[in-house]
């Protein structure tokens, strides 16, 4: 029987929250196609959550040269598992790690990754994926033509589902000691270690209308109250008010929070490319003609320096 391999990311011995998204997508496919589902974790990772997602079998790879992330070594280990486990489908996140790791696995196994999909569909036992292209202006359904398909899943496009818990058998395997061509020497954790924009449920974003880096305080306060993080338009990043890692849009991050509050952002096409699949969009802009109002579920025309503090005290 062929199997579906899902690679689950971890950090500091714990599964990342996005693991639930991959696990849910994997379980659904395995059920639809009557294939075995095999979860793979790398390193000494706690696996007790897996049962809640309906995963009954997991492989924990460790040893060798796996302690620190190396795209080439990890891909080689996964390629070995793909062949051992007779996998015909591999799923992982289209996160920064997944987008680094998956193409290497693709090159090793001879397939193009069907990258950054927002949905997966079973068509007579073959999995097809829908992927946004041209900065979300179009989407294309892609099918693998060979024996193996690798998909990466766009963060937050797949809703995690907890199911009736099953027992998980975890098999530990030690990896061969492969030499790494490139390996992480140091992981510098960002100051404040806030949630990444791609993983946030609420984003309060500020654009050129903010007028300066110190003005972001009011957005930070609102974000904190809502359990979210602050994002920015490119104009704000290029002005040096916010770091590049805060940029939302075509040359920044693609985000899909439950709530996106755009403050002093006009809504240029390149910005919309990064946030138009947010569930709810609120726009605060003094220009009633700003294109952001076309995509906003709720808009307030007004001065953000008055509206944002008022909003902050009202919630």
């Amino acid at each position: 029987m062929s199997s579906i391999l899902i690679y689950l990311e971890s950090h500091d011995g714990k599964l990342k929250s996005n693991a639930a998204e991959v696990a849910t997508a994997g379980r659904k496919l395995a059920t639809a196609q009557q294939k075995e589902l095999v979860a793979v974790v790398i390193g000494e990772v706690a696996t007790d959550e897996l049962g809640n997602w309906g995963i009954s079998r997991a492989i924990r790879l460790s040893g060798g040269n796996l302690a620190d992330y190396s795209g080439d070594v990890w891909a080689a280990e996964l390629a070995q598992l793909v062949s051992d486990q007779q996998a015909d489908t591999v799923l992982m996140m289209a996160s920064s790690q997944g987008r680094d790791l998956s193409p290497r696995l693709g090159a090793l196994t001879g397939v193009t990754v069907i990258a950054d999909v927002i949905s997966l569909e079973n068509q007579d036992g073959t999995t097809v994926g829908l992927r946004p292209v041209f900065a979300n202006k179009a989407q294309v359904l892609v099918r693998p033509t060979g024996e193996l398909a690798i998909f990466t899943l766009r963060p937050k496009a797949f809703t995690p589902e907890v199911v009736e818990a099953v027992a998980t058998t975890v098999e530990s395997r030690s990896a061969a000691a492969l030499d790494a061509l490139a390996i992480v020497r140091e992981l510098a954790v960002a100051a404040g270690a806030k949630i990444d924009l791609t993983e946030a449920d609420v984003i309060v974003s500020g654009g050129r209308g903010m007028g300066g880096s110190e003005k972001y305080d009011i957005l930070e306060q609102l974000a904190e109250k809502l359990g979210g993080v602050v994002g920015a338009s490119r104009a704000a990043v290029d002005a040096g008010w916010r770091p590049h890692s805060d940029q939302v849009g075509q040359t920044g991050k693609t985000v899909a929070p439950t709530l996106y509050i755009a403050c002093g952002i006009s809504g240029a096409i390149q910005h919309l490319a990064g946030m138009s699949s947010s569930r709810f969009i609120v726009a605060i802009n003094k220009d009633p003609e700003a294109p952001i109002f076309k995509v906003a579920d709720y808009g307030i025309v007004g001065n953000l320096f008055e509206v944002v503090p008022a909003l902050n005290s009202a919630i």
Partner: protein
Amino acid sequence: MKAIVCMKQVPDTESRITINPEKTGVEQGDFSYIIGPYDEYAIEAALQLKEAAGEGEVVLLSVGDPSIKSTLQKGMAMGADRSVLIEVDSYNGDALTTARLLAAQLKTMEYDIIFFGKQAPDDNNAQVGPMVGQLLGLPTVTAIAALEVQEGKAVVEREVEGGREVYEVTLPALLTTEKGLNEPRYPSLKGIMQAKRKPVDLVSGEVAAATTEQLTWSYPPSRAEGKIVGEGTAAVPELVRLLKEEAKVL
């Protein structure tokens, strides 16, 4: 310092995208083309390395039909010395196919470092760079936001969720570039004039069978028409009510 920059010509990011009636792709007709925005960081990085070394060469490499020459010229106007274009008639842009074409050509070339943009904005694949790295067995780091080259080594950083990974790799290496790495220069008038005389070598490549097939193209579902809740702070209570009762997000 010999640097090769693999770049892709892409439609201007402002372009309107029209899906063809057969739903097999987009209408190519009315695009104006640019260098992939991430590829510009790659070209800039290569130029800076050559300038710092005081010697060397920056070569642009691309795959496609001869119409790409004008986009290669824009890169040469920035300062790249020459270009190589792997001419292919038609293929579906499959990432591994592209990677194989590039890897085969790169095997015939000399380099200390190979750059790619981290991703092309049209097909959103972000695969060709790391695939080529794997095919050539080169140390490869993707989406770098900082780079320092010294004595045959490169120290690079890449942004990941919640932090930055730091790598040290031995050259020759392959790096893909993220925004924030540098500020790409604008071509000078002199650069634009000189670019016209810089060579574009045409080579042929063998197109392998694609491993994925595009079935149908469509437009993403459009968002429901938004509504203006009101003006100024007076609208805030109503916004809060909507977020609580209608959207149920508060």
